[in-house]
C-alpha cells in the first residue's frame, strides 16, 4: 500500500507532501549554492587570471623589425650592406579549405622545388587564424619570387613580402674582422642580456658584428593590436617605433686590407697594419680564411662542418687570437724595458761568443760563431741572442714582465674592438708557481728574453710594441672602430686615441733603439733587408720563433722538418723611420726564417701603403691548405 496518494478532496495535506516539498526546495537551494560558488570561484577567486587570459586572447603583440646598421671602411665605402630577401606569406582564409591548401602546397612545392608535404604541414598550423598572413617560407630568393609572382593569378592567398638580409659587399673581404650573423642561442636568450630579442633573431657571432652587436642591432619596435578570434586585426592600441641600428665606420683601409690578404696568399699567418700615431688598425688579415657569403641566410651544415673540422682553423682570427712566441721581435720590448730599468745603457757592451753558459747548459746564439762585443745598436741590427740573454739575466723575469706589461700592454687584451682578442702570456715567477706549482729557474728567463719559452704574444701585440717604439714610447688602445654614425650618416661618436701608457725614458735612449731597428733594414749585415721599400726608410725587426725545442729536429734543415715543427716567421716594421706613420707586423706560421719569408711580405704591404696605386682584386682561395700549397698565382 502506498504511503501517500496525493491530496484528497477533503483538502487535507497528505503526510508525505511536506517532506517532498522540503527536499525539493533544499535541492533547489543546493543547486543554486553550487552555481553561485562556482561563479565566485571563476569570477572572484580566479577572475584576475581569467581576465589576463582573455586579454592575451584578443590582443596581439608584434615586433616591428628594424634595420641593422651598415659597416663601412675608413673612407666611407660600405663593407656590409642589407639586401632584400623575400618571404612567402599565405593567408589561409583566401586559400580556402584543407584540400585547396594541399593543392596549393603541391603547386608551390613543384614550382620552386620544395617538399609539398612539409609545406602543407606548415600550412595546417596557420589555419586557426585564417585571416592572418603567416610566413610560409622565410628565404625565397629572387628567382623563386619571380616564379611565384608570375603564377600568382592561379595561386590565391599567396603574397611575397620583402625583408632584409645581411649581405657583405665581398665575401672574401676581412671575414674575420667583419664576422657573420647567426640565430641567437637559447642560452643567450635566457641569459637576459638580449632584451627584446626572440627565438630566430639574428645576432653577430664573430668579428665586429659580434662585438658591436648592440650598436648595430638597433631596437625593434612593438605594436599592440586587438584581434578577433579569426586573427583579423581590428585596432591598434599602442606602438613603439623601431630604432635603426648605428652605422659603423671602421679604421680599415679597404685597399691595404686587400693587399694584406693577397700577400699572405696560401700561407697560414696574419698581417696587422696599424697607424702608430693613433693606433688605428688599417688592415688586419688572417689566413687561411673563409667566405662570408656562406653565412648570409644561414650557413649550411656541410659548410659549417668543413669549416670547423679544418685543421688550419680558417675561422680563427690569427691576428688577435693566435698566440705565438714572438721570437726576436721581442727584443724591441726587452731593450726598452731594460733601458727604462737602467740595467743597460745604449753603450753597454756584452761579449757574444756564440752562447751563454748557465750552469752546465749553454744557451746558444743563432750565430754559433759569435758576434763578439755587442752594444744595443748591433744587438738589434744583428739580432744577437747572447746580448739579450745577458740583459734578461740582469733584468730578472719579474721586472721584465712588469715592464712589458706596462709599456706594451702584453699579457692582456687591450680591447681592440674584437671579442676574439686574446692576451697572450707574459710569464713571471708568480705565474710559474701558480701554473706549475714550481719555482722559477734562471734558465727559463733567458729564452723569455729572446721571445721564446713561455712567452706568447698575438700579432696585434707585436704590432703594439713596434708602434710604441715607433712613436717614441706611447701605448694607446688599438682600435678598429673609427666613427659611429646614425642612419643619415651624422657622426654620433668619433673614437679618439686612448693613451694607456707613456714610457718615462730619455728620448735619446729611445732614439738609439730606433736607430738599431733602422739598421736592421738598411745597414749591411742587418737581418731584415728584404723588407726595404724603395724611396722610404723602413725600420723593422725580424723574428724566427722556434716551435719545438726537441733536440732531434735541431740539426735538420728547414725543409727536412714536418710542417708543424717548422719555425714561425715574424717581421715587424714601421716606416718612414724618421716620422713613422705605419706599422706592419707579419706572422707566417711554420714558414722558417723571419727575414727571408716574412720580410718580403711586410715589404710588399709597406710598398702598397706608400704607393696608392697598388691594389688587387685577386684573392687567395678560401680555406687554403698551407702544408700543401696549390700554387696560387695571385698578383700584386
Amino acid at each position, binding site marked *: *500500500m*502506498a*504511503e*501517500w*496518494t*496525493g*491530496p484528497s*478532496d*477533503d*483538502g*487535507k*495535506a497528505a503526510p*508525505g507532501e*511536506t517532506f*517532498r*516539498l*522540503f527536499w*525539493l*526546495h533544499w535541492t*533547489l537551494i543546493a*543547486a*543554486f549554492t*553550487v*552555481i*553561485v560558488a*562556482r*561563479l*565566485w570561484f*571563476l*569570477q*572572484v577567486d*580566479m*577572475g*584576475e*587570471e*581569467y*581576465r589576463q*587570459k*582573455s*586579454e592575451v*586572447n*584578443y590582443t596581439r603583440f608584434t615586433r616591428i623589425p628594424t634595420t641593422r646598421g651598415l659597416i663601412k671602411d675608413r673612407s666611407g665605402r660600405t663593407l656590409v650592406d642589407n639586401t632584400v630577401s623575400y618571404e612567402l606569406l599565405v593567408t589561409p582564409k583566401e586559400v580556402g579549405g584543407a584540400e585547396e591548401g594541399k593543392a596549393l602546397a603541391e603547386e608551390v612545392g613543384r614550382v620552386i622545388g620544395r617538399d609539398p608535404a612539409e609545406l602543407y604541414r606548415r600550412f595546417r598550423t596557420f589555419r*586557426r587564424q585564417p585571416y592572418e598572413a603567416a610566413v610560409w617560407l622565410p628565404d625565397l630568393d629572387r628567382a623563386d619570387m619571380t616564379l611565384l609572382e608570375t603564377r600568382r593569378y592561379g595561386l590565391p592567398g599567396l603574397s611575397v613580402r620583402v625583408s632584409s638580409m645581411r649581405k657583405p659587399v665581398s665575401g672574401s673581404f676581412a671575414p674575420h674582422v667583419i664576422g657573420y650573423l647567426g640565430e641567437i642561442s637559447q642560452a643567450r636568450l635566457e641569459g637576459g642580456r638580449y632584451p627584446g630579442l626572440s627565438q630566430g633573431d639574428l645576432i653577430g657571432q664573430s668579428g665586429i658584428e659580434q662585438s658591436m652587436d648592440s650598436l648595430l642591432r638597433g631596437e625593434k619596435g612593438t605594436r599592440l593590436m*586587438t*584581434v*578577433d*578570434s*579569426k586573427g583579423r586585426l*581590428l585596432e591598434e592600441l599602442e606602438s613603439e617605433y623601431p630604432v635603426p641600428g648605428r652605422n659603423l665606420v671602421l679604421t680599415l683601409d679597404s685597399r691595404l686590407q686587400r693587399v694584406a690578404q693577397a700577400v699572405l696568399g696560401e700561407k697560414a699567418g696574419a698581417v696587422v697594419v696599424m697607424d702608430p700615431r693613433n693606433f688605428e688598425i688599417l688592415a688586419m688579415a688572417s689566413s687561411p680564411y673563409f667566405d662570408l657569403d656562406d653565412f648570409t641566410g644561414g650557413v649550411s651544415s656541410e659548410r659549417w662542418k668543413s669549416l670547423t673540422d679544418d685543421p688550419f682553423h680558417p675561422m680563427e682570427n690569427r691576428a688577435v687570437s693566435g698566440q705565438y712566441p714572438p721570437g726576436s721581435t721581442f727584443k724591441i720590448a726587452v731593450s726598452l724595458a731594460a733601458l727604462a730599468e737602467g740595467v743597460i745603457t745604449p753603450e753597454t757592451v756584452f761579449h757574444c761568443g756564440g752562447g751563454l753558459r748557465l750552469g752546465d747548459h749553454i744557451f746558444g746564439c743563432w750565430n754559433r760563431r759569435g758576434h763578439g762585443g755587442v752594444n744595443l745598436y748591433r744587438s738589434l741590427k744583428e739580432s744577437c741572442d747572447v746580448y739579450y740573454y745577458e740583459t734578461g739575466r740582469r733584468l730578472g723575469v719579474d721586472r721584465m714582465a712588469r715592464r712589458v706589461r706596462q709599456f706594451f700592454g702584453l699579457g692582456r687584451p687591450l680591447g681592440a674592438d674584437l671579442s676574439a682578442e686574446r692576451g697572450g702570456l707574459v710569464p713571471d715567477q708568480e705565474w710559474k708557481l701558480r701554473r706549475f706549482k714550481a719555482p722559477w729557474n734562471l734558465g727559463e728567463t733567458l729564452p723569455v728574453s729572446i721571445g721564446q719559452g713561455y712567452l706568447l704574444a698575438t700579432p696585434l701585440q707585436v704590432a703594439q710594441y713596434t708602434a710604441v717604439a715607433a712613436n717614441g714610447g706611447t701605448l694607446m688602445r688599438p682600435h678598429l672602430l673609427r666613427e659611429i654614425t646614425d642612419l643619415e650618416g651624422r657622426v654620433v661618436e668619433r673614437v679618439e686615441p686612448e693613451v694607456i701608457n707613456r714610457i718615462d725614458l730619455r728620448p735619446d735612449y729611445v732614439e738609439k733603439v730606433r736607430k738599431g731597428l733602422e739598421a736592421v733594414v738598411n745597414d749591411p749585415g742587418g737581418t731584415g733587408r728584404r723588407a726595404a721599400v724603395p724611396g722610404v726608410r723602413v725600420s723593422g725587426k725580424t723574428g724566427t720563433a722556434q716551435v719545438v725545442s726537441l733536440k732531434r729536429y735541431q740539426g735538420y734543415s728547414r725543409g727536412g722538418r714536418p710542417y708543424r715543427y717548422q719555425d714561425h716567421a715574424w717581421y715587424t716594421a714601421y716606416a718612414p723611420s724618421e716620422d713613422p706613420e705605419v706599422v706592419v707586423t707579419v706572422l707566417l706560421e711554420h714558414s722558417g726564417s723571419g727575414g727571408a719569408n716574412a720580410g718580403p711580405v711586410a715589404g710588399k704591404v709597406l710598398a702598397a701603403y706608400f704607393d696608392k696605386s697598388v691594389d688587387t682584386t685577386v684573392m687567395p682561395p678560401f680555406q687554403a691548405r698551407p702544408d700543401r700549397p696549390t700554387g696560387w698565382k695571385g698578383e700584386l
Partner: protein
Amino acid sequence: MTVKAKYVSFDRRLLENFSWPLALSALGLAVCGLVNLYSISLSHPPESGLSEFGKQLLFCGGGVALCLAALCVDYRILKRVALPLFGIGVGLLLMVEFFGVVAGGARRWLDIASFRFQPSEFMKPALVILLAALFSAKEFAKKGLTLATFPLPAVLTLVPVGLVLKEPDLGTAGLLGFTALPIFLYAAWSRALKLAVAALAAAALSWIFLFGGLDFLLAKEIIHPYQLERVLTHSNPEEDYNGKGWQIIQSKRAIGSGQILGRGFHDGTQQKYGFLPAPNTDFAFAALAEEWGFVGCCAVIALYYTLLCSALGVVRRCRDLFGKYLALGLSSLIFCQMAINIAMVTGLFPVVGIPLPFVSYGGTSLLVSLLAAAGILNIGMRRYLFQDATVIENRKAWEEGQAIALKERIPAVRRLTPPAEGEPDVFPDYRRPHVKPWLKYVGRRSAVRPYLRDSPPPDPRQPLQ
C-alpha cells in the same frame, strides 16, 4: 470531484491568486536576455534584415501575448489533449529518424515549409503533460507507484528519450530524463518498487562499468564515441585546447574575466571579438557573466530562484493532482535547462546544446519557456476551483463579509473539514507564499508577524461573535 468543464472563463479570484513574483521574474529574465542579446547583436550585426535582438524582441512580444491568451484558458484542457500531444511528439521524432535534416553530424531537425524545427523541443512539454495526466489518473492517485503501475510511465518516458538519443542528442535526452525525475519522485512509491528500482540500477551500473557493458554499447552504436569523448574531454578541457576543450576554455575565460562588476555593457572582449562560441544561444550566460560580472550573474540567478520558488509555492498550494504534477514538471523543465546550461558554461558539465531558458536567443526556446511559466501561473490562478474552504486572500474584506453575514443573519459558511496544516486561516504565513518563500521552512515560528502572533487564529467552526 466533478467540475463543469468550462475552460474559458473569468473570475475575480483568478487575479487574487495570480503569482506576481513568478510572472515578474519570468519577464525580468526575458528582459535580461534581451539586454544581453542587444550587446551581442551590436558586435555581430546581421548581413541583412532584422538583427537577432529584433527577432527576439518580436518573439518576446508575441510570446507574452500568447501567454496572456493562455492564462484565460483552464489548464485542465491539457489533460484531455495529453495523449494526442505525446503521440504527435513521438510521431515527429520518428519522422526525424526517417526524413530529418542532418546538421553537425546529427539528425535533429525537420524542415517544414522552409521552417527548421526541432521536434525534441516540442517533446519536452508534451512528456511533462502526459506524465502529469497519467499520475493524476484515478488508478495512480489512489495507489501511487507500485510494481504494477510503474512500467507504463517508465516506458512512456523512455520512448522519447530513446528516440532523441538515437538522433543522436545526448543533451536533450538527458534533459528529458532529468525533467521527468521529480515527477516520478513526487509520487508515492511502494516499498517493493523502491527495492526493485534500486536493484535494477545497481545491476545496470555494475554491468556498464564492471562487466564490459560500455564496450558493448559502443560496439552497437547505442552510445557514440564522440559522446563519450565529450564527457571525457570535460574532465580535462585544457588537454584538448583546439578541439572540444576550446569552447569551455573560452567560456571560462569569458566568465572569469567578468570579475565582480563585469567589463561593462558591450565591453566583453570574449564575446565582442568572437572568442566565445555561440554567445547568443548556448553560451549566452557566459556573455552575460563577462559583461555584468558576479553581481549581474547573481541577479539573474536570484530571478531564477524567485521564479522556481514561486512555482514550488504553486505546487504546494495546488489542490488538483494534475495541476500539481504539471506545475512540478514545468518548473522541473525550466530548472533542469537552467542548471545544465549554467553548469555547462561554467565547466561543471560537458558541453551539450541546451539553451538557457528565457535568456538564450531562439524563438522556440523562448516561447516554450514563457508558456511553461504561463502554465504554472495558470495552475496557481485556478486554485480556487478546488477549494472547499474559504480562502481569505484579503482578510479585511473577509472579516467585513463575516460581519455583514452576521448582521444580515446570513449563516456563516461552515467548514466541512477541520483546519489542516498549511491552511491560510490557521497559519497566515501561507497566505503570502509568494513574498518570502523561504519563510515556510526557515524559522517558521519566529517569522510569524507579531500582529498575527498576538491574535489567535479564528476557529472557523464557530461563527464569529
